[in-house]
């Protein structure tokens, strides 16, 4: 009787342990598309990752972005003025990779800067790191970063 009870308990324990280990992870489709990162919609994520700067100078915006990334300890991986994108990696016991793209806003009076980051093998979806990045960026842009609607 005692023995049967023990087996039931042990199997319950095992089931809880395995399911809790598995639930933290996603399917391949979700990983490729990053579709269900914390239930965030792509609109939310885009607003976290995007700021508008009151300037029309694309090369200067990109040079400021590169300088900021260097200040933050990144080594540049790629930079393309025509496409308006810069990628960089920071290695400091961890690997933090960022891609920043700069494009003119629809009003023709501003530049839209969008950044996305991956920390080791995960997307960064938390707003705080992006806020930090844009605070650092606006210090070298000498302009205020505005939220994009």
């Amino acid at each position, binding site marked *: 009787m005692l023995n049967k009870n023990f087996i039931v308990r042990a199997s319950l324990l095992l089931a809880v342990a395995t399911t809790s280990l598995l639930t*933290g992870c996603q399917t391949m489709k979700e990983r490729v598309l990053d579709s269900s990162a914390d239930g965030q919609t792509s609109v939310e994520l885009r607003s976290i990752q995007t700021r508008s700067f009151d300037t029309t100078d694309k090369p200067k915006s990109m040079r400021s972005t590169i300088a900021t990334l*260097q200040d933050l300890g990144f080594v540049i991986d790629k930079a393309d003025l025509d496409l308006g994108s810069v990628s960089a990696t920071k290695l400091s016991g961890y690997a933090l990779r960022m891609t920043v793209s700069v494009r003119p806003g629809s009003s023709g009076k501003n530049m839209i800067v969008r950044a996305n980051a991956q920390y080791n093998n995960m997307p960064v979806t938390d707003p705080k790191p992006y806020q930090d990045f844009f605070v650092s960026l606006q210090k070298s842009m000498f302009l205020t970063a505005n939220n994009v609607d």
Partner: protein
Amino acid sequence: MKKIISCLAIIGMLGGCATQIPPEALQFQPDTLANRQLQSRKYDIKSEKELLSASNNVLQDMGFNLDESNMPLGVIVASKNRDATDGGQIAGAILMAALFRVQTSYDKDQKIRASLVTKPAATNNAIQVDVTTKTGKQVKFNQPVEASNGFVVRVTFQRLVWNQRGALTKIEGINDPEIYQEFFDKLSKSIFLQAQNVE
């Protein structure tokens, strides 16, 4: 029983997928300015292209291979693979194997990456700006003025180290002042030689 289950659930969640990005990763740190000065040097040269080409020559002198370049933005990215063995570490590994029959790992290979960026130099006389935003916030900052001649070169190095089993053991930025000092000495010579048209 419930305690054990909840403990296991918590451990499971922790061991699952989430590790957090360090809060200081994307913030300016007290050593940011010192690092910028260490990694930058101003050169009185008229053409940014000449400066980039002299820099590229120095990187080639140091055995780097070009990965990426973008002249309009003044960016050069290069890397090289080198040996990472360290005598002390190997001696330690041999000692451990001899004394305790334990196989310890030691560093074997490394990839060194460099990115070099040029930008127009700024004068020492920045314009002091004191403005009030629409929301009534007072903002003060110094707007640097681009100097008519001269460019600043900033180079940054980082490395990835693998052990003898091929596992990644170290990923780090390189901040040794001597390395940067020597790099810029080489670059000064390269610019001088280029100006003299010495091959």
